[in-house]
């Protein structure tokens, strides 16, 4: 049955970016406030699921031409690499370093290597969630 869902598709295009920006906000807030890589990744995959609902699997595959299984391995590489990188400086595994920098636009900012670990968690969560949804969610 052909249905006319032009309103839903137009709204989904706008709301997608709202959810993505909120996910980025949650990801960066994660060090001092509620949030972090896991919630950010789940919300990002929620935004992609909204596009999957509004359009179809073929269109979304053309929009995101990545195999989501590669994101899992990339994220694991980030996380394990950040954790193992501390061994190079003769400190225990998983030790994270931070320092304060004077950035041009943000002023005094504290940059942590824990954020790279969180980026790995973010990518792994997106990869796992989207792989599960693409595998079992599609109706043939």
């Amino acid at each position, binding site marked *: *049955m052909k*249905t006319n869902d032009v309103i*839903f598709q137009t709204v989904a295009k706008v*709301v997608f970016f709202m*959810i993505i920006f*909120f996910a980025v906000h*949650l990801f960066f*807030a994660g060090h001092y*406030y*509620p*949030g972090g890589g896991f*919630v950010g990744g789940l*919300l990002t995959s*929620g935004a992609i*699921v*909204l596009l*999957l*609902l509004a*359009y*179809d*699997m*073929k*269109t979304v595959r053309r929009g995101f031409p990545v195999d989501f299984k590669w994101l899992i391995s990339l994220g694991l590489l980030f996380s394990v690499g950040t954790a193992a990188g501390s061994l190079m400086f003769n400190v225990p595994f998983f030790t994270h370093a931070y320092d304060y920098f004077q950035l041009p636009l943000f002023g005094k900012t504290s940059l942590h290597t824990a954020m790279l670990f969180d980026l790995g968690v973010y990518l792994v969560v997106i990869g796992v969630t989207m792989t599960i*949804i693409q595998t079992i*969610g*599609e*109706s*043939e």
Partner: protein
Amino acid sequence: MIETVLQISLLLLAIAMIGLIYRLIKGPTVPDRVVALDAMGVNLVSITAVLSMLLGTSNYLDIILLIGILAFIGTVAFAKFLEKGKVIEHDRDQ
């Protein structure tokens, strides 16, 4: 004073949640259950807001937005399932 009002409203929201759970289990048709689930999402947002006022913290406000977005996606998925019978299509032009 305001604390008593918030506690009473929390109690009333919990009672409303019980009514929604009853409709979710008993509901004769699928649309009844879908509407009950959607209203449960809205109710959860209200409970979180009242709780954040009661505890005097603003850290719950992000979570309200999160619940709202997830409830929206869930409602959209249920609506599409009721209309088309499938949630994610492979090719919508066929």
